[in-house]
């Protein structure tokens, strides 16, 4: 799995960053009991969330899970129906106490999915706007904007009309504009989703670097699990307006707590089965004929089994201690450094992600797939 370059997993599961966030310090954002309804649908349902100072928090989930509504509520672009939001020591929203600060009173920066670069102004004016709103004098504005443009790699482009920028440049202008007034919180709403794959990976690294240099608390919304794993100090996985799981990226990847979390992160094969308790763990009889041993603590009975594509080992060594599944290769997809195989096994077709070895399997080849009991994750049926 790939982490962001500056993130190194520690044995404790804690995530260290280049700029170690002051762990003992106070929380920068505290959301309590927040609910937001749109007509009959509840977009966010009694949400409680705390973001630490300098932390990079990613809200992850499928569309409609409430992640964007949560972010827009922090920004003041939506007014929740219940609950309170605190930024720093200030209460910016509290339904019970009738506090609802306008967006411009909240000291936040925000990068929009559409970038929201004003097309009728040049780069300098776009970036300078928050400073002018704070009535900084001309010299200070000039200096700060030049510094920040240099930081995001746009030095010398101040005079360029915003309508003549490429997608990557617009993204950088949006980032510069959102951090130039040194906001208490930086909000990012799927800022990379409109870029092509290569640029996206490149800017992902840059974005993290900038946030770490400035030490800004960041909340980042995305539906892309790879982005979340790469960027986050902690990931908040959301579903139907509720938090499904909060944990570090590594923990989220290794120990998904629910079926939804397991399916959302990584490439998964999901099969239904029936479990019986036995010595040495849970025995799962998968519909169609397979029989697997799992170290999951799930209760016996009907359940679903998630097998990660990358956890299935092709032709494991004879010393391998785990489940062995026999099958036939049906489809071969070369992805580059990895190969995705579709392997037909008893009662199912499994996707298998393997490193590209010396040889490529071919359609019709017989293979044995190995998977350890640890990686056979069982969850109760919904």
């Amino acid at each position, binding site marked *: 799995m790939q982490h962001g370059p500056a993130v190194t997993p520690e044995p404790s599961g804690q995530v260290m960053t280049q700029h170690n966030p002051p762990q003992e310090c*106070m929380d*920068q954002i505290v959301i309590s009991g927040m609910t937001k309804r749109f007509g009959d649908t509840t977009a966010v349902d009694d949400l409680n969330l705390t973001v630490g*100072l*300098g932390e990079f928090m990613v809200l992850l989930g499928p569309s409609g899970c409430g992640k964007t509504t949560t972010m827009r509520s922090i*920004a*003041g*672009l939506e*007014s929740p129906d219940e609950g309170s939001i605190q*930024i*720093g*020591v*200030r*209460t*910016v929203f509290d339904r019970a106490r*009738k*506090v*609802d*600060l*306008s*967006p*411009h*009173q*909240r*000291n*936040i*920066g*925000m990068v*929009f*999915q*559409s*970038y*929201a670069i*004003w*097309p*009728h102004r040049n780069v300098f004016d776009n970036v300078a*706007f*928050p400073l002018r*709103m*704070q009535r900084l004098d001309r010299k200070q504005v000039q200096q*700060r904007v030049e*510094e*920040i443009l*240099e*930081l995001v790699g746009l030095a010398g482009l101040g005079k360029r009309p915003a309508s003549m920028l490429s997608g990557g440049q617009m993204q950088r202008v*949006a980032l510069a*504009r*959102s951090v130039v*007034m*040194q*906001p*208490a919180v930086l*909000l990012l709403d799927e800022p990379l989703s409109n870029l092509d794959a290569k640029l996206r990976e490149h800017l992902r690294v840059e974005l993290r670097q900038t946030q770490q*240099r*400035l*030490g*800004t608390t960041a909340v980042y919304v995305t539906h892309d699990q790879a982005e979340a794993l790469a960027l986050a100090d902690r990931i908040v996985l959301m579903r139907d307006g509720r938090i499904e799981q909060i944990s570090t990226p590594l923990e989220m990847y290794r120990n998904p707590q629910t079926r939804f979390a397991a399916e959302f992160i990584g490439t998964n094969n999901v099969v239904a089965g029936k479990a019986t308790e036995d010595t040495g763990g849970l025995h799962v009889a998968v519909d169609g004929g397979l029989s697997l041993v799992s170290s999951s603590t799930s209760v016996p009975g009907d359940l679903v089994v998630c097998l990660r594509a990358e956890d299935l080992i092709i032709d494991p060594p004879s010393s391998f201690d785990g489940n062995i599944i026999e099958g036939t290769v049906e489809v071969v997809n070369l992805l580059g450094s990895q190969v995705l195989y579709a392997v037909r096994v008893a009662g199912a077709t499994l996707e298998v992600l393997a490193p590209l070895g010396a040889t490529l399997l071919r359609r019709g080849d017989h293979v044995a797939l190995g998977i350890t009991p640890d990686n056979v994750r069982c969850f109760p049926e919904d």
Partner: protein
Amino acid sequence: MSTGTGTGIDRTSVADPPLPQQEKPPGRMVSSLWRRGPFWALLAIMIVLVVLPIGMLLLASLTDSTPRPGDPVGNFTLDNFQALFSDRGIEAMVNSVLMALGAGVVAMSIGAALAWLAARSDVPARPLVQLAGIIPLFISGFVGAMAWSLVASPQSGYVNMLLRELGIDVTLNIYSLPGIIFVAGLYYSPYAFIFVYGALTLMNPELEEAASVHGATQPRVAMRVTLPMVRPALLAAGILTFALIIEDFPIPVILGAGNGIPTLPAYVYELMTVAPSDVNGASAVGMAMIVILIALIAGQRMLLRGRSYTTVSGKGFRPGQVRLRRWRWVAFAGVLAYLSLAILVPMLALLHTAVSGAVYYAGFGDLFQTDRWSTEPLVDALTTQAFTEGLINSLTAGALAALFGVALYFALAWFVNRSNIKGRRVLEHLATAPVAIPALVMGIALMWTWIVIPLPVYGTLAVLVIAYVIRFTPQGFGGISGAFQQIHSDLEAAARVSGASALRATTYVTLPLLRTSILSAALLVVVLSIRELASSIFLFTSDTRVLSVVVFGQWENGNWSRVASMSLGYSAVLLLITVVGRRWLRPA
């Protein structure tokens, strides 16, 4: 500080929460009152402008006296509706429906054909075809009707003189139901053009290509794919055209009222102006017209619900073109014929009458006695005090209507598109409501409203300005609101989170981006205001005659030389504004 990254950005202030300014009062929900304040003010304005007049009309239709200052309410009665079910009322209703059906079909055929030619064919001079599609919007149907009186009146019409000269025993009579249908059809074609043209150009050509690739012939593609795709647009345009024609005032009055062909608007006008007048009866007939229009619009909305297949995707489609081959020039001749009938022939007839100073001739040959031609009557007519004052009044009222109107439409569009106040849908309904109010009826309703309201409005240009602002709210609001929807709300939100108040965000971001649309709406209001006759006719006083009223007055007096000269001057003013502003004039 431990950055050591050399960025020079001081991050200490980031780490420290902004202590000194915590819990500042200005952000409290108390401010929601002043956030809502402008909304309530706007709602109040719309209620006074739109709801109150309709209330007055309803009152007048259900009581036995007209609303007067100090005594707005009379005794309740339903007798007024007898006017509607009298012989003449029923005749007027039948004629109106026949006229709207007939002219609707003519207008739809012309408009849809021009739209298809301009959007999808290789017809020569496509810009000219596009122009032909919308030009009648800017030439008043009122002028067209008077000009066609000159061209095809049974006795002295130019065409009939020509037919007699050629010994053909046929007399075309423009003063007939077919005549009215013909003229109304000519001048109501732009709505069909705009709707169908839009649908055809916004449609993804891949849908048609997919049909051809899978084996459909050209005509089959047209029948199975293109036609069903534009059917919602056709339906929408058809109902709108029908509604606009049924409430049209000048065409059926000029061509039909004096010749035993009453229509509903002409009947209302007659009840109001011909002694002994029956203003309560007129109100009752007016209410009936509103009910008809509401039913039509409600029907249109119901039929169209979820049936718009063409969406603006922002992708630049290149619509597929059909090669007309030998029909190319036939089609082009058709376009020229339409332009001749709608513009060229009427204008030449007006010009001829203006410079020759006479209407009655012994024979067709006498028409070309150039020695009798003189620009003197034309210059005389255009320099009369009546004309110059009318021009100044029209321009002033048009400019003021544009100014106040656009401010109102912008505010409405902002609340509808950018606020999350629950009552914003009410504003939207109020903004589109004037579509259902016939112009003539609106004039009557406004007259009573502003006579009763003790403000010095009635009898001044202000009441005309108010009428124009209301009448063109659907168009002006629609145009600006549509432009709002094209501007991503994130652009404004970005300014808000960057520290700008809602007002500042609007003026910094939205207003500049909407400049073109605002200008376009303003110009449209100017042009439509100057064209306006049916509401003005009940709201002018001797000091506040606008151009359309001046020309109409000359027609009522039967002074055809003056009618022709002033119509030309009137059309020239409209044409000038249209040409100068054509860059911004996009009918909404």
